[in-house]
């Protein structure tokens, strides 16, 4: 079984928000709801300063606190290690939202169900890639199988020394960032 992950190279990200718009289209979200947030980061001291942006979405943790804390079993993990929400079971108690250190979850205004990035799992199972990956103009995103040592993503993580956000929190996120 595959174990899906993603690499996001912030040095290639131009902050165009294409991934967010594509994701909203893919998931039928209204303009005010999105599964990707952007954190602008400033570094250095004047006059030697730089700016980069970090897109953050569900990190599909291997040890997800949202799944552990979901009281109804609506949040669950697939065999591919993707975290999903069964909307038939969600009561929108929002316990998963306060449990997620990445604040990756949003309440759907329409249904009240809590939603988030699904790694476009339906498309991935058909052999495609997540829409945020295919739409990225700078090719800043790589998607693939973390268990396959020859996959592009595993090699890129090693080569670019990509690291997850806040690995110290112990959730074992599967999105790796180049910063």
């Amino acid at each position, binding site marked *: 079984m595959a174990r899906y992950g993603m690499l996001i190279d912030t040095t290639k990200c131009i902050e165009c928000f294409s991934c967010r718009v594509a994701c909203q289209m893919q998931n039928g979200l209204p303009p005010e709801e999105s599964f990707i947030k952007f954190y602008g980061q400033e570094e250095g001291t004047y006059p030697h300063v730089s700016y980069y942006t970090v897109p953050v979405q569900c990190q599909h943790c291997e040890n997800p606190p949202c799944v552990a804390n979901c*009281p109804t079993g609506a949040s669950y993990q697939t065999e591919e290690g993707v975290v999903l929400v069964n909307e038939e079971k969600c009561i929108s*108690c929002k316990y998963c939202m306060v449990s997620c250190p990445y604040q990756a979850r949003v309440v759907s205004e329409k249904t009240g169900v809590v939603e988030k990035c699904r790694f476009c799992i339906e498309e991935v199972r058909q052999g495609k890639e997540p829409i945020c990956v295919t739409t990225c103009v700078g090719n800043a995103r790589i998607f693939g199988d973390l268990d396959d040592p020859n996959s592009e993503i595993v090699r890129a993580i090693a080569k670019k020394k990509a690291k997850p956000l806040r690995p110290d929190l112990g959730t074992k996120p599967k999105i790796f960032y180049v910063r």
Partner: protein
Amino acid sequence: MVWGSIIAWYLFLAGVSAGAYCTAVWVGWKFPQAVTIQRTGYYLAPPLLAAGLLLLVIDAEAGLFHPWRFLYLFTNVPGSMMTDGTYIISIFMLITLYQAYLTFQGKKAPGWMTGVGLLFAFGTAAYTGLLLGVVKAVPLWNTSILPVLFTVSALSTGIAMTVLLATLTDQNACSQLISLKKIHFGLMILEGLLIFIMVYITSSANETAFQSVMSLLTGEWSLWFWIGLIVVGLLIPLLLEGLELFHSRSLQVTPAGVEATASGTGSSPFALTIATEGFVLIGGYLLRFLLLAAGTFVTLF
């Protein structure tokens, strides 16, 4: 704020319900003749908890429109802290309902049931703190002091609500319960101490926790914290109740209890009681609201 004032009200009401039940049980053991306050406590527990649960249901809109989904709360075992809490609160709800019914019938519940009830009352009070305490993503909440603090506050607000309503129905219902007031006084001292300890320890946990604490002490929420929670919710009730206890020492004790109402000269015991207990309740709500409001997520960078 993912969890806002609706959830703060729920945490508050569940705590008051548990505290009111404990008050009724304890007064029943210690002062069997003080019937009004026992009845008040037993009558208060179920509707307060039910009101809290109703607020939860309203806040959980996906469940509100698909009520059968709430059944998954019982099937997801072993589950999250919230699943465990659902069981604790459901059992406590049933016990309080039954004991309110028995009270209405003028009967007493068997001792074992009261014992189990007490256990689940403490379970309910502690659970409201555990629910937040296990959330690692919000450093302000992620402390083992929280269940203890919420339990102490639940007992304190439970006594306050019971005394308040018992006094409204019968002006002298609580005038003889000096030891209840002593316990209440002690609980408020303990609560102040626990808030101090929590703030002190949590602020040293990490940067986010420090910022959260500072938003309470000096920042965005500082007025509510100092004036609302500390002064109105703790210091004024401590002062008023302290005065009452101080004056009660000079009263004559008779076999029937204390002869006169234990109040300072020239002040109406009735108004004093209403003010004291009302302030305690305001503080109890503010404690929960402020913790929800000041709880910020860990930083990602």
